[in-house]
Every structure is written in C-alpha cells, then in structure tokens.
C-alpha cells in the first residue's frame, strides 16, 4: 500500500517523469494504431516494431553507449527500410501480404539478434541497457530521454489531430481522396513516418516483441464502444494510457519485472472486456439481443396463429392445437404462452386460449404489417402474390410504426392484401 501511495502521489519526481512519459507515448501509439487498425494494416505495426531492433543495435554500436539520439535515429531508419521493403515486395512480387509481413519481421529480427550477440560478445558494459528494448522498461526512462520520447509523442498527437481529415480519408477511402485532388501518396508517407516514430518511442516502454499490442489492442477495444472517429481516438488513448501506467506500477513494485508484458496484459484485459461486455457490439449484448429477438418472433408467430384460427371461424383455441402447430418446440412454446399470459395478451381458460383485448390489437397489428408488406411488394415491386409471403414473414417483426404509417399512406389505406384477405385495423370486428 505504501508503494501504491508513493507511486501515485509522485513524491519522487522521476516517477512523475515516467508516468508523463508513458502516458504520452501510450496515447501517441494508440492514435497511430487506431488509424492503422481502421486501415486494416494492424500487423504492419508488428513488422515495424520487430524491424527496429537492428537499427537500435547499430545506433548503439556507433555511439558506443545508450545514446537516445543515435538509437532513435537508427531505429527510425531501419523501421523505414522495413516499411519501404514491405510495400516494394507487395508491388513487385506475387507474395501475399501476410507472407511479406512475416518475412520482413523475422528477417529484420534475425539481423537484430546477430548484431545483439556481436555487441554482447564485445563486452561493452552499457550492454545491459540494450536488453530493455526487447521487453521494455519504463522505469528506466530518464529525464533527458523524456524530452525526446515525449516530444516525439506530442508531435505525433498534434500531427494526427491537425490533419485528421486527411488521415481519415486515407484509411476510409483513399481513392476518393485521390479523385478530389489530395496528394494521397504524400499523406501515406507522412502516416508511415508517424507509425515508425510511434514504434520507436514505444519500444522504450513495451519492447520490440510486444509493441504490436500497444498499436493494435487500444483501437480494436475502442471500436466496440463507438462508431465515431473522435470518440474512438479518445477511448483508445485512455485505454492505452491507463494500461501503461498500471504496467509501469507493477514493474516499479517488482523490480526484476519488465514493463512491457504487464502493459500488454492490462491492455488485453481492457480489450477482452470490451469484446465481451461492450453495449451493442459486445458478444454478450449481441447474444442477449438475439435471444430477445427470437423470443419476440416466436410470440408474434403464436399470436398470428391464434388470429388466423379466429379468422377462419373458430371460436376458441385449445392449447394442445398450438403445441401441435409448432412441432418439436413444445417447451419453447409453453414458455412463450406463459410469457404472453403474464403480459396480459392471452387468457387461458380450461385449456382454451383466447385473446384479451390488448392481445387482439397486438395480433391485428402483426397481421396487418404482414399483409401491408405483401401488398406493397406486390404493387410496387411487381412481385407475384405467391412470392411475397417469405419476405413479409421476416419484415413483420421489424417494421416500425413510422414505416407502417408510410405504407398505409402509400397504399391508400387498402382493405385487402394480394391473397384477398382482409387487412385488419384496430376498430375492425373480427
């Protein structure tokens, strides 16, 4: 607990720096990552993040120490080379995207490992600092590092915000942008530069292997909460920053623990929670919505069945007959009848089912929608009367009162449907 207070009250100014740094670079990476996620190029970020390793090693070899300027430059250049090679291979070979990305990723990483072992065997004492780039160590962010990494992160955030229109055009409809005269090639180039920069600054905290998570997970998670780009970026940034701070906290409490894996675990928690529980798009709410819809359609069909019975001259409806009309679904049917009895749409009297007045008007509404739609298809779409039933069977559950009014108006309040059956209105007698 005292660790917790010590960490989050920022008594130690170096912790404040670390938290500021990780927040900035988390938000920067999440912004870039969200765009590349929308562009369906999420794994390019993975390739770039593995590909910066040889650059880092070369920068280290040239500087002879962990100099942030050399390392950032080296990482940027090798990231840029990897990006260039990826698009060059795509336009010059028959290889599929995933094979190209996987090849570039592993080849660059292989080179990186060669250089890393060369440095290791040279016995440079600064070597220990280099391992941090594999799995990240946010605690090691020093004040002078912060100016470079934080500055770049702010640059990324500002550029993406200022040119939001251009970048959204790039990811949503590049051809349209080109046709109205925007330089899409240049915009793509700037975007790739930003992406490489985001990776270069992110590896300090997350490491090259797991950097992909910081690019992909926030956008993918946020996508489940909203359809608006502005909100999407904000939510993604928040997920990323919070996970970054939590991950840093864990590696602060347990010193031998690298930051990267914990940031990824927290990010994935957010992501999976979003996939499961997000309203509307989450797995759970889609499951519930589906269940509800199936229940509603069964209720509608049941009411319609009873209505048809009454229409054909029956006075009452034995419950057994309803069961027989839905073969193999007795349990569900019984459940639905119970539900309808509870909501006061049906009455059950000695095994005979009858409508309440509320139930009758609901049944009329469904039958009316069904027949109105049949008539509409027949009159306006010129579909033969014997082909309209299936479509109406689906549409009767989802036509809204507004659409109903429109249909009535358009069809001029018809009396009969294409099968010469009456279209029931609320005050009609049955």
């Amino acid at each position: 607990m005292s660790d917790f207070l010590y960490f989050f009250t920022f008594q130690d100014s170096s912790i404040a720096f670390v938290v500021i740094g990780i927040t900035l670079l988390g938000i920067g990476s999440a912004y870039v990552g969200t765009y590349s996620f929308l562009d369906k190029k999420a794994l390019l970020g993975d390739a770039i993040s593995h590909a910066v390793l040889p650059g880092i090693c070369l920068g280290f070899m040239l500087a002879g120490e962990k100099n942030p300027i050399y390392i950032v430059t080296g990482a940027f250049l090798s990231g840029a080379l990897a990006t260039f090679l990826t698009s060059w291979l795509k336009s010059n070979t028959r290889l599929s995207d995933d094979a190209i990305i996987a090849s570039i990723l592993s080849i660059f990483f292989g080179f990186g490992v060669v250089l890393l072992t060369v440095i290791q065997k040279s016995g440079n004492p600064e070597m220990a600092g280099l391992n941090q780039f594999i799995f990240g160590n946010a605690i090691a962010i020093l004040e002078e590092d912060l100016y470079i990494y934080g500055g770049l992160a702010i640059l990324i955030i500002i550029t993406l915000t200022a040119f939001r229109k251009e970048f959204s055009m790039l990811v949503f409809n590049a051809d349209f942008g080109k046709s109205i005269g925007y330089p899409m090639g240049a915009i793509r180039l700037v975007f790739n530069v930003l992406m490489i920069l985001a990776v270069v600054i992110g590896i300090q905290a997350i490491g090259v292997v797991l950097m992909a998570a910081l690019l992909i997970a926030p956008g993918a998670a946020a996508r489940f909460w909203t359809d608006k780009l502005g909100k999407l970026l904000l939510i993604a940034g928040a997920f990323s920053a919070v996970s970054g701070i939590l991950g840093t906290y864990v590696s602060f409490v347990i010193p031998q623990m690298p930051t990267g894996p914990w940031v990824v675990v927290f990010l994935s928690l957010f992501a999976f929670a979003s996939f499961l529980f997000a309203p509307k798009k989450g797995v759970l709410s889609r499951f519930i919505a589906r269940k509800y819809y199936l229940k509603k359609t069964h209720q509608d069909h049941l009411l319609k069945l009873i209505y048809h019975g009454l229409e054909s001259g029956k006075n009452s409806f034995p419950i057994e007959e309803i069961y027989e009309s839905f073969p193999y679904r007795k349990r569900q049917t019984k459940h639905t009848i119970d539900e309808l009895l509870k909501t006061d749409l049906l009455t059950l009297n000695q095994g005979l089912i009858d409508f309440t007045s509320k139930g009758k008007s609901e049944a009329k509404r469904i039958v009316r929608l069904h027949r109105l739609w049949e008539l509409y298809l027949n009159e306006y779409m010129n579909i033969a009367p014997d082909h309209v039933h299936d479509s109406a069977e689906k549409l009767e559950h989802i036509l809204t009162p507004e659409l109903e009014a429109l249909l009535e108006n358009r069809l001029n309040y018809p009396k009969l449907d294409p099968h010469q059956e009456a279209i029931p209105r609320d005050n009609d007698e049955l």
Partner: protein
Amino acid sequence: MSFDQNAFLIIFTASLISISCGLLGVFMMLRKMSMTGDAISHAVLPGIVIGFFVSGSQRGLEVIIGAGILGILATLIIDWLKNKAKVQLDASIGITFTLLFAIGIILINMLAYKVDLDQECVLYGEIAYLPIDLWITDAGFSMGPRITYLAVLNLVLVSVFIFLLYKELNLTSFDENFGLVIGLPAGAINLALMSMVSYTTVSSFEAVGAILVVALLVVPPATAFLWTKKLTSLIKLTCALGIFIAITGYYMAYLVDSSIAGMMVAVGGIVFLGSAFVKSIKPNWIFGTSTSIKPLEN
C-alpha cells in the same frame, strides 16, 4: 579444413529443423496463414514455461503437451475473436499472440528461480551449445546430442504428416470450399496443421528460439515461391534452401562470432531479398510473358 564433428552436428541439426519448418511453412504460406504461424510460435511460450515448471526439465513430455495445447488454444482464440466477437483478422492475431507471449514472459520472470529458462534462451535459442547437451541413458552411455534426436523425430513426424495428408493439405490450401464440398474435414485438417506447427515450434525453440522459428517457417517458402509455380518443386526448393541457410549461416556466424540462429535467418533474408530483386528486374523476354499467369494465387 579438417572435418569438425561439432560443426557437422550443428549444421545437420539446423538443416533438419529448417526442413521441418519449411515443409509446414509451405502450406501455411499457401493458406495465407503465415502470420498465424508467427502468432502460434509466440503463443506457445506460456505452455513451454508451465510444462517446464511441472516437469522440472526441458526433456519432459509435459513441455511438448503444454506447448501443443497453447498452440491450439491460440488458433481457437483467433477464430473466436474473428467469428464470434467480429474483430478483424489482423487485430485478432495481434491481440492473441501478444497477450500469450506476455503471459509467458511474466511466468518466466516469476518462476525465474525455479526453472532453468531465461528470456534470451527463449528468444534467440542457442544451437552452439548443442554438442555439449548430450542425451545420456540411465546406464550412463552417451547417445549424442539430445536436440539432434528431437530434430530427427520432428522431421520424421512432419514428413509422415505431410505424406499422409498431402492430397488433403494440397486441396484445402488452394480451394477450401471445394475440399468441403467433396467432404474433406477442412477445419480438422487446419487444426492438425496448427498442432504440427506448435509441436515443431516447441521442439525447435531451444535451438533457434521462438521468434526465429517464424523466420524458418516463412522465409524459405516465400523465397521458393518467387522461383517456382509448382507445389512439388516449391517443397523441394524450400528444403534445399533450408540446408543452404544452415550451412552458410553456421560459417558466417563463425566468421563474425555471433548467434548461429540469427545468422541463419540473416542469410535467409539476404537470399529472399536478393531473389525478389532479381525477379523484379529480370526482363520479360527471357521467359516470355509468363509473369502475367499466376496459377498459385487464388
């Protein structure tokens, strides 16, 4: 140069590993699942660590079982995210493998004092220690390097797998729907292929590391794909490249005193990029205009 038994063993084992990986990689590439292979090779890490912890040694069957389970689990999570949660495929892959790999690294750090397994070994492997890591029988008789036996066993299993399922793999790789129509269990074949990839990853990770396995899975088939349009010659060329990479990689690493596995990948990368470059500048009049026909693409 005199015959160096250690060099021979290392090159021999490395060739076996790269042939096994290449054989599976060909089918992964044709199915456009190279990145899934990447994901699996990262995702088996927690399985390896847990198996390591349970069995107390890297020789245990538990390690292979653990990794196999995690490999299949990763495939299932990716499928679930894509089909049920409606996350786009690239993001599903990215999220799944980073999470599992992160869990693996955390486990290694938490169990660091209990298991003889460190991050570097997992990442890069060390094939150079192969000649001193001997398989010693209970009677105290040395049978030779343990990893070489693993590699032989792996290659045999992979070859048998591909030999038995050649027709099915071939068909489902090129036209999955046709395979389904004529009654092939495409899902099961896919899962079997993924299991083989996980198994190969585990049995190779000690020698070449979890990430460089990906390179061996992807780079030789991709290079061969640039040169040929027939499946059989694709497979042969991939095997030949695997052997070439192993030999050249070893001597290059010897020259600059560096990681053998890393150097193998670097050599593979140079061959790959060189091939792509040569193929792209080669004028059409040498081979006519055949470049416009792309029979291997769907």
